[in-house]
């Protein structure tokens, strides 16, 4: 556990290590009793309703060389592409938006995936999704009997960030008492045994109540100097302290891991470590369903250089305008989620920082047609951003552009990262 930002609060058992490639190191406790080890095949939900936080999962998987990653929007989920995955990740965003996009068909696909042995990892909105609810759209996803604790009929007095402090939930509210850092104490339940306290960031995630204490992995236990209180501190304590922050529960042959705080956030390596541990724990050793054959194309030499230069040109143009837009104080409410201009660059930087790696490698491979999709999306992003900047300069509304922009950013980033991970896997195979 080198270079841990939170050494003062981390109490990971000495000697506990995870080999990211194989799932267990020489002194690892992971995974339990599994013979043959392999890297998990992970699906990341990138469809409507997601915010930018799925990119934090991407960073984590990339850092830990968990390269067998695919990106699935709502159509892919409904279309059966969960079949053959080990893990399906649903990140933060707008829970209602995710549920609405996936629909009843998507809910059944996820349920089948879990019941047949898949691992569902839900963070923030992704954790709310499978909890018990009677609300429209969400009621298709009643996979667990875990309840939301930060639910109230009467909204407490909100001190700041009103737009982020609550979401209407039927006749009541899901309210968020704090943002930023919270302290979490592990319960000792597997797979987080041997760990004491950590800190992780909370951005609208749940406090949870589980029927069975054995399912609780971590509880909220305190705040730090970086905790931002949205309600009175006493109210925040009452809402969060002792409530479950991370839970695992069985469902059929599979399992769900639900995280209120963002264990995947790149600034919290101790939480990251636990998340990887959850993903690799109990990894099924049955043979994977063969991947569906796709027509793959390879770009090498001048063709690769030209393709990457074209992407780089557009992303550079987009970053430059996006930075200019960040000087404006504004927010867009898309679905139930608030977006600030700073979120634009989170997508762009996720691409930008990986271009150098692709430039250095011998070739890149992708599903046929991905290059065209990337070019179209990137061009659309730059055009939209420039129009947005023009409108902002003129003091005009930009909501319609923002909706389309974030959709294009999500699609572009998803396709680019698919190409990136496919190329990394190809390179690894070549080296082997």
């Amino acid at each position, binding site marked *: 556990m080198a270079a841990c930002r939170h050494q003062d609060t981390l109490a990971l058992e000495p000697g506990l290590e995870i080999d990211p490639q194989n799932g267990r190191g020489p002194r690892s406790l992971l995974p339990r009793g599994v013979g043959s080890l392999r890297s998990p095949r992970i699906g990341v939900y990138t469809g409507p309703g997601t915010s930018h936080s799925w990119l934090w999962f991407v960073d984590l998987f990339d850092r830990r060389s968990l390269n067998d990653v695919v990106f699935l929007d709502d159509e892919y989920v409904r279309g059966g592409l969960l079949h053959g995955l080990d893990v399906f990740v649903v990140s933060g965003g707008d829970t209602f938006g995710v549920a609405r996009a996936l629909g009843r068909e998507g809910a059944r696909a996820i349920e089948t995936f879990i019941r047949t042995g898949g691992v569902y990892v839900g963070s923030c909105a992704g954790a709310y999704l499978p909890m018990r609810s009677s609300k429209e759209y969400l009621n298709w996803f009643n996979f667990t009997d875990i309840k939301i604790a930060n639910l109230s009929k009467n909204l407490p007095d909100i001190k700041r960030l009103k737009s982020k402090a609550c979401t209407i939930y039927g006749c009541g509210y899901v309210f968020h008492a704090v943002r930023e850092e919270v302290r979490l104490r592990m319960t000792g339940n597997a797979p987080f045994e041997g760990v004491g306290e950590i800190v992780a960031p909370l951005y609208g995630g749940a406090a949870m109540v589980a029927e069975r204490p054995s399912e609780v992995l971590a509880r909220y236990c305190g705040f730090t100097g970086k905790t931002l209180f949205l309600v009175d501190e006493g109210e925040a304590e009452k809402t969060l302290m002792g409530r479950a922050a991370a839970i695992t529960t069985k469902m059929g042959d599979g399992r769900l891991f639900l995280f209120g705080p963002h264990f995947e956030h790149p600034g919290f390596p101790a939480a990251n470590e636990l998340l990887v541990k959850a993903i690799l724990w109990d990894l099924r050793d049955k043979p994977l369903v063969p991947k569906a054959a796709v027509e793959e194309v390879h770009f090498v030499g001048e063709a690769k250089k030209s393709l990457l230069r074209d992407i780089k040109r557009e992303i550079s143009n987009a970053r*430059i305008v996006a930075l200019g837009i960040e000087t404006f104080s504004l927010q867009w409410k898309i679905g139930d989620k608030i977006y600030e201009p700073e979120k634009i660059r989170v997508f762009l930087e996720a691409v930008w920082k990986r271009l150098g790696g692709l430039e250095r490698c011998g070739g890149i491979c992708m599903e046929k047609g991905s290059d065209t999709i990337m070019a179209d999306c990137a061009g659309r992003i730059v055009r939209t951003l420039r129009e947005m900047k023009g409108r902002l300069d003129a003091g005009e509304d930009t909501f319609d552009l923002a909706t389309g922009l974030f959709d294009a950013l999500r699609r572009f980033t998803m396709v680019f990262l698919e190409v990136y991970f496919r190329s990394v896997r190809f390179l690894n195979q070549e080296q082997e």
Partner: protein
Amino acid sequence: MEYISSGKILVVDLATGNASDEELSDDLVSQKIGGVGITSSLYQSYADEDPIILGTGAFTGSLVPGSALAIFTAKSPRTGTVCHSPVTFKAGMELKFAGFDYVVIKGKSPKPVLLWVHDGIADVVDAGAMWGKDIWEAGDDIRKNMGDDLIQTLLIGKAGESGSDLAQIGINYGGGTDRWGFGKIFGDKNLKGIALRGMGLLEISDAEGFVDECLEMLGEVKKGACAGKSGIGDIMVALGEKDAKEWLAPLVHRNSACYNMPCATSTFICMDEDPKVVVESEKPEPGVLLSDVYGLLAFKKAGFSLEQAGRALKACCKCGIDPVAVAELAVKEGKKDAQSIEQALASMKGPVSASQAKAFSPWAPLQPVFADFGALGDEKATMDWWMRRQALAYIFGIHPVFVTMSPEVSEERMLKLMNIGTGLEVSQETLDGVIAGVCS
């Protein structure tokens, strides 16, 4: 080249519209250090292809106080010799962060184009719609079309487009710095200009040592001769124009500094708005940024009021023409107001007086400003001092006005910073050789 550098030389062939890049080698840096040492070397390498070279100095864009400078090197249409002119404000820093240390521009485009350099990419884009527009309008178009107000521009106006020997390359809205007619070179190449924006980072070999040395230098500068000095008025006074500050005072809005300059050397005056009111201007062009001290002095000495001088300088900025030459010609032609000058700008032609300065643009003060650099002796000795100081500035990327006011920018210190920052071992002997080469 790994440190304090983007490590890349961009080569743009305007005839084909193609851009390629080459590695900046450690060997070249070890031999020529940077800035004008390398632009001169690149000029010689491409001499047969009518090049104009834009380059950063070794420290441009770094923490070294005054590290604002980039350089143009080309054969002057006015003198017929290879000359260098400074690129100030934030353009040098932006070039380095855009991923290139040097840009070789060769050939002639068949149609008007703009070179858009951003984050390791160089695009030669159509500038047909911009051709014919003045520098300010064209700069506005670029910033609007590209969607970023922070883009730095190096553009020509009507003077460059029409092939005037007096044409300058205007930097943003602040006018040009060359007395060599470099704007004509752009015009001849059908190059409206260069737009720069980058979000790169610089690596430093010994980052802590480098920062420590920079902070020590800054501490000394703050206690030195330029402490408390600010704006073009103070520089004019130092050059002997004793009433300059009083002359400027009624229209001064603010003083302005180039990238990482400990002392502001430019002053914004408002001719069309109350300069004492500090609010977001409702007028698109309420005044002008005065950065050319000799240009301003020329109009003052010609008997212009500050308001008229400001308007004349604004017209020069927009047209992209040397204001010193314009002031001289205006006097010869008996023009006494900005309006008559503005109307005549497009057709103004030399000859004008030649400067005693060689190689480096006599835009920077030709004598010590504020500071005492010891006994310089006669005129020749002063010019020798000036040439060596300018060479030092143009090699290391230090603002050429700053080196005339700050003895803290010493050769010894520049070499020390160079070696800490790059991990190379550049000697005084090498520096002497480079200076001798670029001053010859």
